[in-house]
């Protein structure tokens, strides 16, 4: 019996030593110097899994020109925050630019790119879309736009031509076109109300963006902070009211049974020509063409007023390039970003993906699917959707969905005011 405790202690001791020996060599490789044999390894995290192949080709070309740099592509965006926690984030990052990315910017996660020569080649109006979310230290450029997605009304050219309808440029023309389709037994708009985000980005964003200056509205609203009340001039109730009837009118032009259709149903049905118009962005185009390769599509910005010069497109900076501030490979990362923003790379990407290039001297868009939005983008008649300004803790999409069903605008807007105040109270410093 006396031997047993001794041996147990020895066993534990051995286990402890073995464990320590196991850990010791591993703990050395936390923040690794990523240069080996003169070749710097860059980690490039991009946010769109569907374009991995394109970037693989870009990286291949880049490495051929820059043999001293190796680039590893990562599309697992969920690893970005863990990377920051590990203090080992990717060197070059692309992200969709909105609320969440703006948070990182405000915390100084990304390096200042204003000194880079390529920054001067970017269209300043598109750069403003990025800056409008706030800048670190008030003047830094933390992200350079790479791809701008413009959304409007996708329409079926064949149906438009068969009915003799031309692209509407005013709200009255738009309503008249819808009535004409309805009279001909064609659903004017394919609604997918089961997926509330489609209502939010389509109907809600298009109408609010066309009817009021969304950016200015949210600037004022944010300035007001937690003091907001429904009767204040900055509130939702005071500003969104006139836009609501038009949203409901849009919803009423949807096909019967829209409440039970989701985004995938919508893509399948619209590709088969079951409606004339579809309130979706360019991301739906590839799905529509995949389902019916003969479909002839076009897009136009939804006219919300009767002044064609006020017609605006909904845009979002779909990809913006950043370099993380603490990267040990700053020089190599800058060379890679430079390469990505070369006209041959960035323009080709946007051409292939039905998006708009951020470069000042980018050629006009020739893709017939989105060329109808070209004028609005060129003239900077665009807005970032109202939904993108909301903090994720507000279940906005669900409110919009229930508004479409209940048609109770007052309740909807006062709910938004309440939610906004609650969040402002919580986050007030």
């Amino acid at each position: 019996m006396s031997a047993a405790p001794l041996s147990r202690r020895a066993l534990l001791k051995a286990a402890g030593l073995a464990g320590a020996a196991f850990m010791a060599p591993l703990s050395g490789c936390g923040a690794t110097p990523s240069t080996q044999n003169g070749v710097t390894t860059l980690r490039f995290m991009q946010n769109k899994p569907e374009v991995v192949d394109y970037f693989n080709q870009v990286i291949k070309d880049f490495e051929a020109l820059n043999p001293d740099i190796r680039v590893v592509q990562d599309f697992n965006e969920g690893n970005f925050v863990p990377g920051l926690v590990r203090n080992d984030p990717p060197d070059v990052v692309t992200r969709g630019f909105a609320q969440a990315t703006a948070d990182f910017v405000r915390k100084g996660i990304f390096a200042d790119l204003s000194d880079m020569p390529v920054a001067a080649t970017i269209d300043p109006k598109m750069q403003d879309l990025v800056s409008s979310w706030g800048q670190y230290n008030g003047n830094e450029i933390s992200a350079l736009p790479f791809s701008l997605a413009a959304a409007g009304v996708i329409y079926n050219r064949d149906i438009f031509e068969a009915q003799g309808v031309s692209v509407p440029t005013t709200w009255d023309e738009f309503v008249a076109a819808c009535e004409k389709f309805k009279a001909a037994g064609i659903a004017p708009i394919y609604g997918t109300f089961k997926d509330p985000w489609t209502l939010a980005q389509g109907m809600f964003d298009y109408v609010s963006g066309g009817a009021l200056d969304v950016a200015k509205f949210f600037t004022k609203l944010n300035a007001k902070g937690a003091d907001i009340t429904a009767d204040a001039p900055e509130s939702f109730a005071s500003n969104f009211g006139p836009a609501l009837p038009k949203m409901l009118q849009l919803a009423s032009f949807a096909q019967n049974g829209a409440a039970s259709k989701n985004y995938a149903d919508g893509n399948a049905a619209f590709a088969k020509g079951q409606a004339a118009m579809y309130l979706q962005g360019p991301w739906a185009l590839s799905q529509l063409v995949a389902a019916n390769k003969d479909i002839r599509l076009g897009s136009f910005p939804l006219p919300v007023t009767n002044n064609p010069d006020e017609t605006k497109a909904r845009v979002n900076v779909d990809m913006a390039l950043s370099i993380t501030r603490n990267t040990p490979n700053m020089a190599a990362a800058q060379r890679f970003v430079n390469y990505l923003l070369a006209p041959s790379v960035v323009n080709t990407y946007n051409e292939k993906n039905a998006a708009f290039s951020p470069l000042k001297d980018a050629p006009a868009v020739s893709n017939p699917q989105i060329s109808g939005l070209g004028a609005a983008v060129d003239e900077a008649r665009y807005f970032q959707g109202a939904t993108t300004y909301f903090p994720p803790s507000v279940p906005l999409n669900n409110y919009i969905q229930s508004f479409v069903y209940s048609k109770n605008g007052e309740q909807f807007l006062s709910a938004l005011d309440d939610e906004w105040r609650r969040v402002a109270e919580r986050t007030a410093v």
Partner: protein
Amino acid sequence: MTASTLPEPIARAAASTGIKYGFRRPGSSPAGKTRRSNREGFKINWWLTALMVVASLTVLLPLYFTVAMALKSPDQIGTGTGLEWPNPMNWENFVAAYVATNFPRAFMSTAFVTVFSVLGSLACSSLVAYAIARNWNRKFFRGSFVYLLSAMFIPFPVIILPLIKQTALLGLDNPAGVVFLHVLGGISFNTLLYIAFVRSIPVELEESARMDGATTWQVFRKIIFPLLAPMNATVGIFAFLGSWNDFLLPQMMIADPALQTLPVVQMLFQGEFNTNYSLAFASYLMAMAPTLVVYILAQRWVLSGVMRGAVK
């Protein structure tokens, strides 16, 4: 220690101890079947049969969809009810998915995580359970049991960021770290299962081994561990499914995209607004294959294991 050696220890253990482990020998049922079908006036319970058909449809229908989807081309997906069998079949989906995910590499990474998670869970949890169960009269061991159990009340997402920080400091931001956390995370539940089982093993067995001069390690290795076989199967199955299908932990923990596991790599087919259904399902099917094979091989233990895990 490996899964393939399980049946013999069970049989041996059952024979030597006289304890019934609830396995129906394959040979014992046919007699019953023939008796039933031969007997006149045997009544079929149609209600139960219908219920069973519906229940099995809940498994077979999704499986059918998976196979059919994997063989469809993009324009076949949008048409019809989805129930149609694709014609022509697009076998090249599998090739495309195989290339896009770099399947062999992701598969090896997942297999590494799974194999070592299963082995680690079996080894660590059974040792812990044995130590606690046989020292139940000491406060320290009873306390440590409660301590382990209390870990089950902490939701994993709450501790994930601190864990990432820790594992990064220890250089474990790789599949080895995922294995480590799988084993660690499973200890409380697995120990709970094991302890109940160890208690049912008579202490006299061990005492007789001690009389013959066995050390504690030998008693565990030669007597207890083989007797734990049914519970090993249960724990092994839980550990296998848990680590093979795990998404969150590898996604957040593995820093090097080249070492990423299958469930994470398969995200490739899901964009924010676009899902490449046919490739996605082709790759899901390839990823599911090992689970299906293991299930078919280990069906007996899975079923008995579910029952065994029910009583703690």
